[in-house]
């Protein structure tokens, strides 16, 4: 009676070591197959398969578009939101809106199709899709089932009004006589970035935080959701997504946080629509001007405290009045990501000896580098580290991939090395990849051991059966033991029963 036992990892390792069986050293064919797979994965279709940067809605408008129709229509009560939406459209869609602005009758879709040359049909489709998504255009079908598009009434009315009379904010900047000297734009930007960095440091649970923010821990948890992963009993660590998040530029990060902030609004008893409209409104305020807090609604007033923590606004207290000053972060909110890709100057120099020099005073940068390198020296404007096998293994353990690290090093390359080809020395990138590959050589297969066969015949039959089905992992004819993939276990049992 063959005894069946669950294969423990250690026993698998044993047989790997003494027999260096296929698991550690895939046969040639196996390897070739792998290589082919690898190549395929890197092929042109790769983009679709590769895990995209999914953590962020690329654009505020994607989030707006995802709102239910009724809420969306409500948003269009505000002329500012209409304008923000218009601004976010691709050029062709913008043109259609302007074209249709004073057309009240539905326009036949087929007719619109003819507005563009055939080769631009795809652009046309993108534009129309976007317009429909945001309910700026509404689909109408006539009796002959022909599709026509009509502009959203509210949107149309608001835009018409806006065009004639211009927009005006619900509040005016406070005069100099009230506020006195306000921070300069540079000071404001520094303030905003400091706040933001401080928030990020807290977000990734860094021990480097000097001053905490006032976000409640539950709110912080909301933000951290998806960025940190915690195993039981361990301190939460940055996950793969979290690392990607850190590598994104500030605006993209801001979007991610804003989205989390808005989507969790309901838990706090706040209508997300209110928040969206307030945020969009905020983006039309003048950077650096002071606006009185008394003009805000209760919901907005709570929100502005949170925004202050993130560095979107600076709060100041006068003698009588108190006011908020929007920073660059706030006024950039409505612009889409692609526009705001004003490239930051890179900071990192990687040398052929695996040493890494980052021209930065930022603690956050230091924390990021610490994720995959060993930081050795910190100077006033320079961080010195080394990429080591150990540090990389630590990063891989946290789910950070070699490609992510390499692309971070490339994207943040210091201007001095940016013209070099390759930007990051080839031997370093190769080595990072090789170290990653090294970890993927052993693969765990859940499997079962069969031993104590009553006869050689029986053993061989079992072997053949498993081999024919392609589930035989290992056999030892001398001791009559074999290992079979766990998927095949049930079938194997049946087979043994039949043999008896």
């Amino acid at each position, binding site marked *: 009676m063959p005894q069946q036992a669950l294969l423990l990892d250690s026993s698998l390792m044993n047989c790997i*070591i*003494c*027999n*260096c069986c296929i698991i550690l*050293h895939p046969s*040639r064919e196996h390897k070739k197959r792998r290589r082919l797979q690898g190549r395929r994965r890197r092929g042109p279709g790769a983009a679709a398969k590769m895990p995209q940067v999914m953590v962020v809605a690329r654009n505020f408008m994607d989030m707006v578009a995802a709102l239910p129709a009724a809420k969306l229509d409500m948003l269009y009560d505000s002329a500012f939101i209409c304008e923000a939406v218009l601004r976010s459209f691709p050029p062709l869609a913008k043109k259609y809106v302007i074209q249709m602005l004073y057309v009240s009758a539905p326009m036949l879709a087929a007719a619109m199709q003819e507005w563009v040359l055939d080769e631009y049909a795809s652009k046309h489709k993108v534009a129309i899709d976007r317009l429909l998504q945001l309910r700026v255009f509404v689909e109408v079908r006539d009796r002959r089932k022909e599709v026509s598009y009509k502009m959203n009434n509210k949107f149309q009315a608001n835009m018409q009004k806006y065009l004639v009379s211009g927009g005006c904010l619900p509040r005016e900047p406070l005069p100099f006589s009230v506020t006195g000297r306000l921070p300069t734009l540079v000071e404001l930007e520094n303030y905003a970035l400091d706040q933001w960095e401080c928030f990020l440091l807290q977000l990734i649970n860094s021990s480097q935080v000097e001053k905490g923010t006032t976000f409640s821990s539950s709110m912080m948890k909301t933000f951290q959701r998806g960025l940190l992963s915690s195993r039981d009993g361990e301190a939460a660590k940055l996950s793969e997504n979290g690392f990607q998040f850190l590598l994104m530029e500030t605006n993209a990060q801001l979007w991610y946080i804003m989205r989390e902030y808005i989507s969790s609004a309901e838990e706090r008893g706040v209508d997300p629509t209110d928040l969206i409209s307030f945020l969009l409104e905020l983006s039309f305020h003048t950077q650096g001007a002071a606006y009185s807090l008394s003009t805000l609604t209760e919901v907005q007033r709570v929100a502005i405290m949170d925004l202050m923590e993130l560095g979107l606004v600076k709060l100041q207290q006068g003698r009588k009045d108190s006011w908020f000053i929007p920073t660059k972060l706030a006024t950039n909110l409505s612009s889409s990501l692609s526009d705001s890709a004003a490239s930051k100057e890179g900071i990192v*120099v990687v*040398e*052929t*000896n*695996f*040493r890494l*020099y980052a021209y930065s*005073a930022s603690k956050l940068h230091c924390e990021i580098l610490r994720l995959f390198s*060993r*930081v*050795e*020296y*910190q*100077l*006033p*404007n*320079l961080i*010195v580290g*080394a990429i*080591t096998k150990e540090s990389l293994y630590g990063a891989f353990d946290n789910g950070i991939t070699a490609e992510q690290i390499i692309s971070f090093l490339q994207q943040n390359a210091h201007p*001095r*090395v940016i013209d070099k080809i390759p930007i990051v*020395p*080839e*031997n*370093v990138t*190769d*080595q990072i990849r*090789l170290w990653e590959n090294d970890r993927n050589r052993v693969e765990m297969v859940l499997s079962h051991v069969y031993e104590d066969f009553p006869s050689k015949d029986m053993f061989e039959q079992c072997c053949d059966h498993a081999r024919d089905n392609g589930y035989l992992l290992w056999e030892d004819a001398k001791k009559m033991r074999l290992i079979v993939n766990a998927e095949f276990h049930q079938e194997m049992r049946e087979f043994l029963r039949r043999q008896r």
Partner: protein
Amino acid sequence: MAGGDGDRARAPKRYKSSAPSKAALVDETAEMNYADDFDDDARDGDNEVKKRDFTKLELKPDHVNRPLWACADGRIFLETFSPLYKQAYDFLIAIAEPVCRPESMHEYNLTPHSLYAAVSVGLETTTIISVLSKLSKTKLPHEIIDFIHGSTANYGKVKLVLKKNQYFVESPFPEVLKTLLNDDVILKARKAPEDCLGASSSFAVSKTAGEIASGHDLLDGMELAAATEDKETHSFEIDSNQVENVKQRCLPNALNFPMLEEYDFRNDTVNPDLDMELKPQARPRPYQEKSLSKMFGNGRARSGIIVLPCGAGKSLVGVSAACRIKKSCLCLATNAVSVDQWAFQFKLWSTIRDEHISRFTSDNKEKFRGMAGVVVTTYNMVAFGGKRSEDSEKIIEEIRSREWGLLLMDEVHVVPAHMFRKVISITKSHCKLGLTATLVREDERITDLNFLIGPKLYEANWLDLVKGGFIANVQCAEVWCPMTKEFFAEYLKKENSKKKQVLYVMNPNKFRACEFLIRFHEQQRGDKIIVFADNLFALTAYAMKLRKPMIYGATSHAERTRILYQFKNSPEVNTVFLSKVGDNSIDIPEANVIIQISSHAGSRRQEAQRLGRILRAKGKHQDRMAGGKEEYNAFFYSLVSTDTQEMYYSTKRQQFLIDQGYSFKVITSSPPPDEGPNLSFHTLDEQLDLLGKVLSAGDDMIGVEHLEEDSDGKALLKARRSAGLMSAFSGAGGMVYMEYNTGKGNGAKKKDPAKRHTLFKKRYT
């Protein structure tokens, strides 16, 4: 000053992370050789423990224009793209030890030794601090300032002078001499003045012209202060046998009054002049000029070490130095072949007359004629302690009795410290110049050189020389050869622990990769290839299978010459297999490809030395300049079997070259899988056959080659296949690079004749 002391203590500690175990080992094996450790990377261990946070340093407003940062623990970072780079580099190389010098950012360490070197080339404490602070982006940490003050306060106050074959300790400050004499070692070494036996505290007083410092163009407007007034000098004589002890007592780790050795050769009227000039066609390159200017900075000759990569023209520096001093010169080389080469270099570059130069080896016992001359010999010839022939006894006697103007020492890194001691105590020289390519720094024995010869005067930057086209631009590659299943299974077996090395070297994939590379370079590029293997079994097996000539220790001189001649001149012979004998001594300027199939554990120096074999620049100068026609004109392949010890060693070995800015490209798919049966060992049967041979080879067959220098200095390199501990071969036992084993002359380690290989028994009985 407390801070300074603390720091001084800290800097050497960096080395000590690995010291305790090694120190013991080094003592045991002291007679074996110059230690070449492979296991400690001081940087690694130390930095893990404490992170250095210097963010509080105050940044200067114009920091962008300044090239460097200095940390409180002595580490200095230098931007190479700064407009001030050249000046800053010259300055730093004078005051600090380079840690690594890749392309964009260099790292240096300030150590007491490096500051000692700085002071001895004439820099003063205040100059060091003011220049450093001018170059620094931040305000200098006070620890650094204290450290520099602390380390240099006593430097440059005491000099060691050789006059009329007697050694004197000189100082303008009698109180310093008194301090020194409070020390037992020095007191014992002192020779009581003959005339006034009682008064031991009085010193001989004389007047000397003060130094005239000039010729330093460190930074604009930073000319060094010139002290020109006459000074009163106090001195006492010491026993010539104790010189080295006295010098050691004076080093920073003891009394902290390091002695400068300078030779005022122009005013030396006692020793006869030697008529020699550099020939007009000998034009030293800029870096050679610079190294010479460091040596002759103040019109006198300083003792010290000049570090230039292999192939960068060290011999011209040596010959130029001799030509400037124009006194008798004793030139020491490592073996007879180099002796010939040095003699040739002297004749090539200088106008010295043939009768004024002589070689002294076991084969050539020449004597120069006239009052002064150049003698070229080996360390072994001078240090030999046994009975000599009558001729050599005479010559040695003359070497001993003469006051040499210059003691020129080649390859100072390979010679064991004890041999140095002997050589230096036997010969009396006014000035010592050591030349080397690889001063591997973590090694503690390097600090020996600091007092045996003198401070490091100059060290060239490899990458700069490559850019300037002075040495070849080498593409380094590490070729990963996966172990075949069968070999790996044997490798893992416990009973094969002694065969591990031969198993990974004989890995069929490695063989195929080697064969492929040889074929590629011979046929596609028409290159000349050297293949290095430490393991004799592998060397033989590879060479036989591929039908290539090989040279190892037991190859006779005639045979060697014949093979090398063919390699140089015949279009048929493009590949030669070399054992360790080729690491240093064999000069093969034609070769431009190296394939290394086995090596001595983690020896960084061996790696660098081997690379040096192909560094001599070839082709037209303009092609080699940055952006020239050929990007790479030399190739260095190191074949490693994956998943074996070799991988680990390989990383260690490369460290030195990586610190010099070289990068190793990893090649994983070699040989190309589509080569199939074009290469040997394609079928499993062939591979198993090979495996069988490896396994059946006796333990004595698979060892690493041991070389012996003949006690009488001839480069009689004997192969001894010895069955030793594998751990020793792989380096775990010794941490010592075993090229120069002791000859019998050194009295240590006689082999039991019974254990000696049968082939050599006859010779010894």
